[in-house]
C-alpha cells in the first residue's frame, strides 16, 4: 500500500561540507542515509527520519541539518497534523498505535506554576559553599514516636528498615530489555557512586550487577520476570509495581525480537518469546491482597528491607495511597501523567492519568489528615526535569524523586519517541548488541554522576536561599511555595497560596 504519511523531517546536507565519509549512513538505525556509489554521494530517505539527531551530532564536518518538514495543512485546531497522521497510520496497519517516552501533550505543567521562596532580612539565607547543608534522606516507615533508654540514651524503639540516600534523587525503573545492559550498568554505577538508588524495572537483574545490590531497587511486577530468591536477597529495596504513569492500567508486551539471549537469561524466559506482563497482578485484586504480597515479600526477605509499592497517578490516588500505607508499604511511589516508557499504546499515554503535582499534593494531604504520613515515604516520578522540580516536589510532600527521562537524556536520548521500535540510534532503548555498544558504561556513569552532582549543588543553593540547612525541613513545607496563574481549586488541591498573598 502506498503510504499517505508525509515525511516528518527534512534533511539538509551542505554539499560544501559533506566529505562522503558515511558516518551518517553507519550511525542511522532508521535507514535514512545511504551512499550512492554510482554518483559517489550520500543521500537520504527523509521519510524514515525520526529526528533523533544522531547523524547531526556525529557528522564530523557539521554538514547536516534536520528540520521539521514545514508542510502545512490548512489551519484546523481540531484536526491537527498529529491527529491526521495517526489516522493515516492506523488506516494503513489496523493496529494499536505504539509510542515511547512520556505524554507530550500540552496539559498544564504545574511545576511551571509554582514558585519557590527565599529569605530576605527577617531570617538569614545560608551560603551552602561555606556552611553544612544536608541532603541526606531516609526512606522507610518511621515510628509514631521514639523512646529513648534514659540510662544509656540509646534508642529503645525498634526502627523499621531504613535506606539512606545521600541525595533525594533516584533513577526510575527502566527494565533490562527495554533499555540496554550498558544503560543498566551506567545507572547502577552512578547510583553507587552518588549514594542513591537505581531501579531494575520489571525485567530482572543481570548477575553482573549483583555487586550493586546495595544501591538497587528490585521490581516485582505482574510478569514476575527474573524474580527469584537471590534477586530479592541482593536488592536494597523491593518495589511492587502496580502501574506506571505512561500506561496506567495496562500491562506490558516486550516484543519477542527484543528478547535476546542475554535478556532471556535475566528475565528467565525462552529467547524470542514475547514477555507478557499481565495488566493486573493476578494475586492482587484488593488492598487486602496487596497487603498479602507486601508481607509475602517481607517474609521472603525476613523483614530486612523496605517494600515499596508503585502506582500510576490516577483520579483516586489519595484513597488508594491510604490503602497502600495500611497494606504495609514502607515506600509509596507515584508515577505521573508525564512518566516515560519503552512502549505504550499512544492513546493510553496521551489520555490516561493525572499530573504528578496534583497526585502528590492530594496524597500527602490525605495521609497527613489520616495521621499515617509517617508510616511510609513518598517517592514521585513522571516529568522531573531539573532541580527546581525536585525542590518543588519535596516542598509539596515528597521524600525523594525518581528520574527516568532526565537520566536517559543525560545518556544521549533526544526524545524522538521511537523506544518501542528497538532501533534506538543512541543505543539506549534497544537490545541489539551492536547498538548497545553506543553507550559506554564508563562514560554513561560519568554523565549521570555529573547530572546528580549538578542538581544536588543546585538543591543546596535553593535550600540556602530559603534559610534552610536540611532537606527534611523543606519536606511538605508548602509555605515555601506560591502558585501563579492557577485557579482557586488548583491552589486548594496543591495546598499553596497565590503568589503575592
Amino acid at each position, binding site marked *: 500500500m502506498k503510504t499517505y504519511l508525509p515525511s516528518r523531517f527534512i534533511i539538509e546536507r551542505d554539499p560544501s561540507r559533506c566529505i562522503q565519509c558515511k558516518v551518517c549512513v553507519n550511525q542511522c538505525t532508521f535507514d535514512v542515509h545511504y551512499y550512492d556509489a554510482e554518483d559517489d554521494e550520500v543521500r537520504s530517505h527523509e521519510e524514515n527520519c525520526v529526528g533523533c539527531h544522531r547523524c547531526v551530532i556525529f557528522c564530523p564536518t557539521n554538514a547536516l541539518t534536520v528540520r521539521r518538514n514545514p508542510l502545512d495543512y490548512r489551519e484546523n485546531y481540531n484536526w491537527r497534523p498529529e491527529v491526521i497522521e495517526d489516522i493515516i497510520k492506523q488506516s494503513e496497519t489496523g493496529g494499536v498505535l505504539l509510542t515511547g517516552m512520556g505524554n507530550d501533550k500540552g496539559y498544564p505543567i504545574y511545576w511551571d506554576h509554582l514558585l519557590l521562596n527565599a529569605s530576605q532580612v527577617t531570617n538569614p539565607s545560608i551560603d551552602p559553599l561555606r556552611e553544612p547543608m544536608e541532603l541526606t534522606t531516609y526512606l522507610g516507615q518511621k515510628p509514631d514516636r521514639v523512646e529513648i533508654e534514659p540510662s544509656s540514651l540509646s534508642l529503645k524503639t525498634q526502627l523499621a528498615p531504613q535506606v539512606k540516600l545521600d541525595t533525594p534523587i533516584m533513577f526510575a525503573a527502566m527494565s533490562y530489555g527495554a533499555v540496554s545492559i550498558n544503560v543498566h550498568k551506567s545507572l547502577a554505577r552512578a547510583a553507587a557512586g552518588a549514594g542513591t538508588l537505581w531501579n531494575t524495572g520489571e525485567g530482572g537483574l543481570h548477575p553482573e550487577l549483583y555487586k550493586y545490590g546495595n544501591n538497587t531497587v528490585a521490581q516485582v511486577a505482574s510478569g514476575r520476570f527474573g524474580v527469584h530468591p537471590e534477586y530479592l536477597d541482593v536488592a536494597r529495596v523491593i518495589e511492587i509495581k502496580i502501574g506506571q504513569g505512561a500506561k496506567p492500567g495496562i500491562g506490558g508486551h516486550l516484543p519477542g525480537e527484543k528478547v535476546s539471549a542475554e535478556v532471556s537469561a535475566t528475565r528467565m524466559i525462552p529467547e524470542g518469546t514475547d514477555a507478557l506482563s499481565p495488566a493486573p497482578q493476578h494475586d492482587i485484586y484488593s488492598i487486602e491482597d496487596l497487603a498479602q504480597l507486601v508481607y509475602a515479600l517481607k517474609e521472603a526477605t525476613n523483614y530486612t528491607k523496605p517494600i515499596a509499592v508503585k502506582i500510576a497517578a490516577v483520579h483516586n490516588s489519595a484513597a488508594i495511597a491510604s490503602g497502600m500505607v495500611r497494606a504495609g508499604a514502607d515506600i509509596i511511589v507515584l508515577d505521573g501523567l508525564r512518566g516515560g516508557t519503552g512502549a505504550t499504546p499512544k492513546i493510553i499515554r496521551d489520555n490516561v492519568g493525572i499530573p504528578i503535582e496534583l497526585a502528590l499534593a492530594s496524597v500527602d494531604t490525605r495521609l497527613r489528615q489520616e495521621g499515617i504520613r509517617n508510616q511510609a515515604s513518598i517517592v514521585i516520578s513522571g516529568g522531573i526535569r531539573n532541580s527546581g522540580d525536585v525542590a518543588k516536589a519535596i516542598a509539596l510532600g515528597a521524600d525523594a524523586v525518581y528520574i527516568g527521562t532526565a537520566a536517559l537524556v543525560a545518556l544521549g536520548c533526544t526524545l524522538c519517541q521511537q523506544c*518501542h521500535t528497538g532501533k534506538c540510534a543512541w543505543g539506549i532503548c534497544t537490545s541489539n548488541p551492536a547498538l548497545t555498544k553506543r553507550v559506554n558504561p564508563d562514560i554513561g556513569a560519568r554523565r549521570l554522576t555529573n547530572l546528580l552532582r549538578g542538581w544536588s549543588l543546585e538543591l543546596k543553593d535553593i535550600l540556602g536561599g530559603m534559610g534552610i540547612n536540611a532537606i527534611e525541613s523543606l519536606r511538605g513545607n508548602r509555605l515555601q511555595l506560591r502558585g501563579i496563574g492557577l485557579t482557586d481549586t488548583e491552589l486548594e488541591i496543591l495546598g499553596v497560596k497565590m503568589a503575592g498573598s
Partner: protein
Amino acid sequence: MKNNQVVKIDASGIFYRELNAKLREVVSDGVQKIELCNIYGQRYIGTDLDKPVEIEIFGTPGNDLGAFMDGPKITVHGNAQDGCGNTMNNGEIIVHGHAGDITGLSARGGKIFIRDNVGYRAGIHMKEYQDRKPVVVIGGTAQDFLGEYMAGGVLILLGLNLKKGECHKANFIGTGMHSGVIYMRGNVQDFQLGKEVGVAELDEKDGLVLKELVSEFASHFGYAAEEILKHKFAKLFPLHLRPYGRLYAY
C-alpha cells in the same frame, strides 16, 4: 544428629510471623523434617526457606503457601488456599485435598500436586527457563482461565472426580498461552478453550513426560497410575509464541 530428628510445632494460636520465624530458626539449626500441627490459615509457610527440608502440615495453611519458595518439600494433609506456590522457584508442594485460586502463579520451577480441585487461574503465567520447568498436576478439575498466559512448564488436569461423560467446567483454558504444555484427561467443548491454544494428540515424548508425572502424582495419593493413563489425554499447546505480536501499528 539433628538431620534425622523430626521437629513438631503446634501452631494453634500462633500468628504467621512467629511461626515462620520459628521455621527459619529450626531450619537454620539443620533440622530437615518438620511437622506442623493445628495450622489454621497461617500464611507464607515455607516462603523464606531455601533448604530441601520436609514439612508436613496438618490443618489448612493460609494463602501464599510456599510463595517464592526455593527448595522445601511441603505436604499438606488438608486443603490449601489461594496462591499456593506463588512465584515458586524450586521445591515441591503436595496437597491431599483442594487448592484455591492462582495455584502456581508465575512459578518458575518445582512441582505442585493437588489431589482434588483447584480454583480460578491455576498455573497462570508459569514460565520455564532452560532446565527449570514448573509442573502442576491437578487430580480433580479446575475453574476458569486454567493455564492463562502460560509461558512454560507442564500443567496436567486429570479430572479424576468427573462423572462419566461429564465435561470439565473451566472456560477460557489456556487464554494467552504462549509456551509450555497442558495435558488434559476428561472432555472439554471447543468453546471452553482459549483462542490461543490448539489441540493435538500426544506423541511419544508427551507420553513419557505424562507417564512420569502421573506416576509421581499416583504415588503421592495412592492411585494406580496405569488406571489413570488408560484414558485418552489431549494435549493443548500454544498456537503462537507471540500471540499479541500483530496487535500494533509501528
